[in-house]
């Protein structure tokens, strides 16, 4: 597989800078790079039965991003660094889901909630859950960008509540409340959508 050569760091940095300036096309170009990088890393990091998958994934995500960005990127702000990592991961994951969905052919959104998603053992069965979540997240972002950011950090970059609180320089409780509301809102959205499709 031809993924053993990550894209040149300079290119990624340029794309990130463009993205930072609001160029959405840059994000489109970045996504496959992250994706390749992840696969590359996965080849020798995954599947250690003894330690947890989840944690490994988080580490992978961070590592992929770090390696892509390399040393050149002028990341003075940790917030941006992690927020971008989280957003990229969301994109990558949605890409996974799209491919799965296309492969499956058919199946509209189901009645899903975040808790259902947690318990899904095999994502190959229900990629549409993630796509629905993604769309709901986008709607949440229009309403409340800050909550979206927090949720992304939590869901896609694997940050703990405390880490997120530190990053935003607010209290643990504040983040918890943000997440509670965001989650309630999302659950309702996903539920409505599922009902609407029937």
């Amino acid at each position, binding site marked *: 597989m031809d993924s053993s050569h990550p894209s040149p760091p300079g290119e990624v940095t340029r794309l990130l800078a463009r993205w*930072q300036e609001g160029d959405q096309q840059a994000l489109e170009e970045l996504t496959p790079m992250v994706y390749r990088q992840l696969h590359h890393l996965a080849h020798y990091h995954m*599947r250690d039965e003894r330690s947890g998958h989840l944690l490994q*994934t988080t580490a992978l995500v*961070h590592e992929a991003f770090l390696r892509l960005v390399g040393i050149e990127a002028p990341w003075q702000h940790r917030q941006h660094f992690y927020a971008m990592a989280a957003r990229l991961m969301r994109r990558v994951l949605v890409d*996974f889901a799209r491919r799965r969905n296309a492969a499956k052919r058919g199946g509209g959104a189901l009645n899903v909630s975040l808790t259902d998603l947690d318990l899904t053992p095999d994502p190959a069965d229900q990629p549409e859950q993630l796509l629905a979540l993604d769309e709901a997240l986008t709607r949440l*972002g229009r309403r409340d960008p800050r909550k979206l*950011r927090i949720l992304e950090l939590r869901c896609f970059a694997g940050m703990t509540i405390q880490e997120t609180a530190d990053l935003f320089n607010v209290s643990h409780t504040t983040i918890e409340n943000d997440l509670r509301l965001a*989650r*309630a*809102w999302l659950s309702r959205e996903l539920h409505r959508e599922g009902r609407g499709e029937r």
Partner: protein
Amino acid sequence: MTEPKKDPIDDPARGTATEAWERVDAVFREAVHLDGEARREFLDSRCGDDGTLRREVESLLLWAREGEDFTAWALGPQRWMAAELSAEFDRVQGTRLESGDNLGSYQLLREVGRGGMSRVFLAERADDQYHMQVAVKVIRPGLDSPELLGRLRQERQILAGLNHPHIAHLLDGGTTPAGTPFFVLEYVPGEPIDTYCDDRRLPIDACLELFLKVCGAVQYAHRNLIIHRDLKPSNLLVTADGEPKLLDFGIAKVLNPEAFSMTVSETQLGARLLTPEYASPEQFQGQELTTGTDVYSLGMILYRLLTGRLPFPSEGQTLATLERVVCEAPPPLPSQAAEANEAGRGRALRGDLDRILLKALEKDPEARYGSVERFADDLHRYREGLPVSVRRPSLPYRARRFVRRHRTAFTAAAVVGLLLVAVVAYYTVRLRSERDAAQQLAERLTRTMNFVEEMVTQADPSATNAQEVSVREVVDQMAERNEELRDEPALRAAVMNQVGRLYNRLALYDEAEAQLAQALEIRRSLSRQKSGAPDLDVADTAKELGNSHYYLGRPESAEALLTEAWRTRRRLLGEDDPLTVSCENDLSVVLENLGRLDEAEAHSRSVLEYRRANDPDSLLMTEALTNLGAVRWSQGKLEEAEDLYRQALEMGRRLQGPLHRDVTTQANNLAALLSIRGNHTEAEALFAEALAANRQLFGDQHPYVSRGFHRHARELRTLGRRQEAAADYREALRLHQEIAPEDPRITAWLVEFAEMLVEGDDCPAAAPLLEQALARSPEDATARALVTTCFADATSRSGGFPP
């Protein structure tokens, strides 16, 4: 709530929080924590007659699940990612190896283990004669860039130099058809040390005895600047005869250069690379790893063996929780843990063992034992009923002075950092063994740490290819950067000394000499300022430089340096210090090389006596036996030489097993001596044994093997077993012509073989050999004589010269 600043990563179509939503947010925040009536009253007062607001908040409250565990619910997407990546991984593994496949000259028998980066197979050589089993560790795809392969080869050589009876030996390596590297290791049938001790209900003293052997192995590696970093029971097997074997020494480090860039992050990047149960706080925090990391893991292992429990069980914990516990919580007192596990077991641990274990498990690496040696030393003292060095609980956790690395530091920098830390650790250990050096040590260490930090953070990533840095480059870089220590001559010399040592180990003797000569000069002038006479630093460097000179073929200057080093050490440490003895050993070898045999004899005898008294059953002992044997042989004292060689071989076999290059060398040496002494039968058997072992160790395409065939052939010829000899001569020639076609040995072998054939009246078979020999070396006198003989033979058979 403050309005976020302009947010560059959000979509252009992003919205902003409307006033209405912000009100919902504010009311929700408080209401969610209230119940029943209180909530109703609160909503009444906050929403007033704003029905939309109230409906929205109430609706959302319905969806909010009060008191739910926030740590778990968001992990769905990550679980997804994990599953996706696993699936992808399996697709890539389409080319996976299976039992029954051949890998080079090894046939895989069955998979015996798998880890994050590799799979391990039980295998045997496909052309096996002994059916000796080995473990083949296949690296997972992805690690296949040419630079990396090059580095693997180089590092493999260094690892191959780790010869210790309690370290599973690296035998061979290669590349799979798919291009990924594999390692061939000594196969250790055994069980993990924890189950071994548990199942046998090993008493404390027996556990300690076993554990101390493990410490010996780790110590040995540390002396060779290799940190294990992943000590855990599954890497520590105990064989049926109760000997521990350490697996995977250094392999994790070698195979995973990314591990270095991983540890530099501020987040948990290193997480997946470590085994959480036995990992140290600095590993969790991605900080610099030193020999102290191994001390910690050893402490965890001993804790587990003695108490039956782990101080920080990882079951059911998230990594973040575990990290917090490992980094912050004091481990439960071992005696209490043992008592809780099994009533009555705690008593024996109370006191010294509690203290020793807690010392090894200090959160701050600097507060732990300074070396595995010191840890082991306390355990020895405990076993002998002597007072141990830890008298009271050590200081509370201090803010770490360890270098916190920049999160995007590069591999090169990280490697340099690691090596330097090893340098410092090494230097520190040495310093600590001197008395009243504590103050001085603290100062130097601080300065060194600053230096390391600077090196790590300022290493210019564009100066080297960040991904692929060879050991060689790293050492070169250390040598170069060391200039910056100009104002710190003592430290500079220490680093140079270490760099020189590393070069010596890499067989780069010229480079080693350059560093060591400078270091020696600095150290000499420093010692002159201090006391006038050469000190131990001077002796260290002189010894190391002496070794470089010896390998560079300058035995005279080597002798002078080693003599100086030996005298200095003898004066300062005493005749019976291991350091003095090791110097004397080197000296004896050089003297033998110079033909000063009487002196060589005296020194190697004295080394042997020391070993007999102090390390009677060790590789050092076999070395001493061999060295004296070589001297006695040169002196013509063949009987004693034979006796010494026999002892060395017997001990080597016992300590290292028959499949070890040192052992085959010893067998060949003894066989050569026996042959000279006329004992051809035994010589032949030994040559045959060494040859078979070397074929297993190195494969057929190796000069040890072609030359082994030749030696064996010659011995068979002497015994009159010509047919067998002929077969071996043919094999020797065939292989050697492939391996080293220009080697003049080939001519000699051709002639020898032809000679044997002529002796057996087989001139027709000899003729083509002689032709070849003369084509290579037209003036070869023996070949010409043989041609003449054959010619005469041919003519006599045909009835005499024609008239």
